[in-house]
């Protein structure tokens, strides 16, 4: 980064906020601030080839086996919301990260940080939900840990999962495998999870029937692999939404991605809720959707296969990979003008009017 610091560039500027000295909620939002933390703090400290690949999980070889390994922490509030809960998300989040490496998920660990006074019945509800989610995804939770913090020092319950999966094919499913003219498929309608959470936040007087899309992506990924399709890259859509995932992939592949706004599937409910709150579906979180990059010749087959096996509304071909400008995602709007999509900055903040 060669960006000038404000003190150097603008000596008269009294607002030195360019580099924050404290963690703000935005640092956990999955957008630019999160990326900034990773690039400035974590990656330099832990530097190694697996980490530098910047994939959803690390791809490792040990004893002749090719494995995928990943971890994910969950701090969602409220703990239960329409369509899902913290336990189901904790399992599917890690399962899906393994899937995106092209792995078949096998084993998970589960760490629980509990706040003093937290009802055991609620914990049991979460744990049973994890059991069901693990069963649905075909994984076993094989090890775990429990810690308790004093009342007031936690938000009831935090769950961290880690997972291991096995890679049983010779493909390199990674941003570096993306090629010009690859077709971009999104596996279903976007934005449900984020809007379901938004609608249940205690301080928002806003009701809707939107349910989280939280689901495992094992079936569609295994189907694509079993069919022998030449999958170039996959990425699950989580915080930061479709836009942030695409920008990350455009940047790490050094290519450009062109998207048709009218092709991106969004349900009427989600669109309506986003309009009311001044949010953009492209930036809203998902927990059971992914984008898949395949060669044009295989795109119809891949689409049909995803339609048959993936959770959510019908998948869609939303765009194509172009040679440049490198790292750029462009969106053709409903009226035909092109604009640039950027990743989310900090967390989504509702607008005033």
């Amino acid at each position: 980064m060669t960006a000038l610091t404000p003190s150097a560039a603008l000596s008269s500027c009294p607002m030195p906020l360019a580099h924050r000295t404290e963690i703000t909620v935005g640092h956990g939002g999955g957008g630019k601030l999160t990326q900034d933390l990773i690039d400035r703090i974590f990656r330099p400290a832990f530097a190694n080839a697996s980490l530098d690949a910047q994939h959803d999980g690390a791809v490792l070889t040990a004893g002749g086996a090719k494995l995928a390994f990943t971890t994910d922490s969950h701090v969602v509030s409220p703990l239960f919301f329409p369509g899902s809960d913290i336990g189901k998300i904790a399992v599917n989040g890690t399962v899906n990260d393994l899937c995106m490496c092209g792995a078949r998920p096998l084993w998970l660990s589960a760490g629980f940080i509990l706040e003093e006074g937290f009802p055991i019945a609620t914990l049991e509800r979460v744990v049973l939900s994890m059991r069901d989610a693990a069963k649905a995804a075909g994984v076993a939770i094989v090890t775990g840990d429990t810690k308790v913090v004093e009342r007031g020092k936690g938000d009831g319950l935090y769950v961290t999962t880690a997972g291991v999966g096995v890679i049983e094919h010779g493909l390199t499913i990674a941003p570096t495998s993306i090629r010009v003219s690859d077709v971009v498929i999104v596996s279903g309608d976007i934005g449900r999870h984020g809007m379901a959470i938004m609608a249940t936040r205690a301080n928002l007087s806003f009701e809707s029937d939107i349910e989280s899309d939280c689901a495992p992506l094992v079936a569609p990924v295994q189907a694509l692999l079993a069919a022998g399709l030449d999958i170039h890259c996959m990425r699950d859509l989580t915080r930061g939404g479709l836009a942030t995932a695409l920008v990350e992939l455009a940047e790490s592949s050094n290519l450009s991605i062109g998207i048709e706004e009218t092709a991106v599937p969004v349900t009427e409910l989600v669109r309506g809720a986003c309009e009311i709150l001044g949010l953009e579906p492209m930036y809203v979180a998902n927990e059971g959707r992914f984008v898949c990059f395949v060669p044009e010749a295989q795109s119809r087959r891949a689409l049909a296969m995803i339609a048959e096996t993936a959770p959510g509304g019908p998948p869609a071909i939303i765009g194509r990979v172009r040679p440049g400008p490198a790292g750029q995602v462009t969106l053709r709007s409903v009226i035909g003008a092109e604009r640039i999509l950027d990743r989310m900055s900090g967390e989504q903040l509702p607008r005033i009017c």
Partner: protein
Amino acid sequence: MKYVDEYRDAALVHQIAAAIARMTTRPWTIMEICGGQTHAIVKFGLDELLPKKITLVHGPGCPVCVTPSEIIDHAIELALRPNVVLCSFGDMLRVPGTGIDLLTAKARGGDVRIVYSPLDAVTVAKENPTKEIVFFAVGFETTAPANAMSVQRAQREGVRNFSILTSHVLVPPAMRALLSAPDNLVQGFLAAGHVCTIMGLGEYGPIAKEHRAPIIVTGFEPVDILEGLFRCVKQLEEGRAEVENAYARAVKFEGNIHARKIVEQVFTIADRNWRGLGVIPRSGLEVRPELANFDARKRFRLSNAAARPDEICISGEIMRGVKKPHQCPAFGRACKPEHPLGAPMVSGEGACAAYYRYRSRVVAESVAV
């Protein structure tokens, strides 16, 4: 989506754009007042459909952008007091005051909560009777009625721990100030449809007449905006300067009489400092003296901080149309949405954020220079 999609009809948009192009014989500079309109113009790329002779200037109609830093400092000061809960609309949290922003105040232990409605802040007050709840009442005529209602509800229900920190601004005085500025370039206005929904059209006739500038009340969808531009260019070409309502599905001449009454019952007109534009006489609202208990400034004896001259941020020049966002030396370099140096980079409605988000090409070129 009904009532939205028909106003995003691509064929109709291109048809109106072509009609504007056929009609335009001279260069015209038109300001859209409202940040919501700026956002739509840049998001849908509407300006790219217009003939080169037409220049759009992005006006001061973003409440986040024009809230002066001294009032944000007051909000931060209150948020950091141990017994205060500061409730705010979401996008005010990232706007820097003279030091930190409200997000940082929150990280330092301040109780800052995002609400969608000021009435929710009254509920927070009822649920926390031992704490002082302050709602950061920012906005134009559009948010004034709901903010006023929060005071009335608190009064009616005997909620004594609730007050509002106001930074309310009014559109017509700002339009007059812009038109009176010696470097003014603006020849016609798209007035903010939602402001007119509340206040009606009465105030605009004299402005159009005195300054010989057509004023078209305009909505926020692509078809609305192009329709507003079409009518504005038509008047300019024909040498007329009248007030027209191109947003009749939402705006009546007299506005919303009930909402206006509530605003008058709670607020009184006052001079107000606009970030980037300076003090504009009789351009703001403050809580009436008889409701002083609900006025956070009086309740917490906040110093009446003098208006500070603006910092490096050139938002004033941008809002007057003298410069475009990417002509600012900080744009895209030291000033980005994740560390804004000025408010127009914060809100989705701010001209700089809109340019940064949707015009990365412009960003790349200006940063490369």
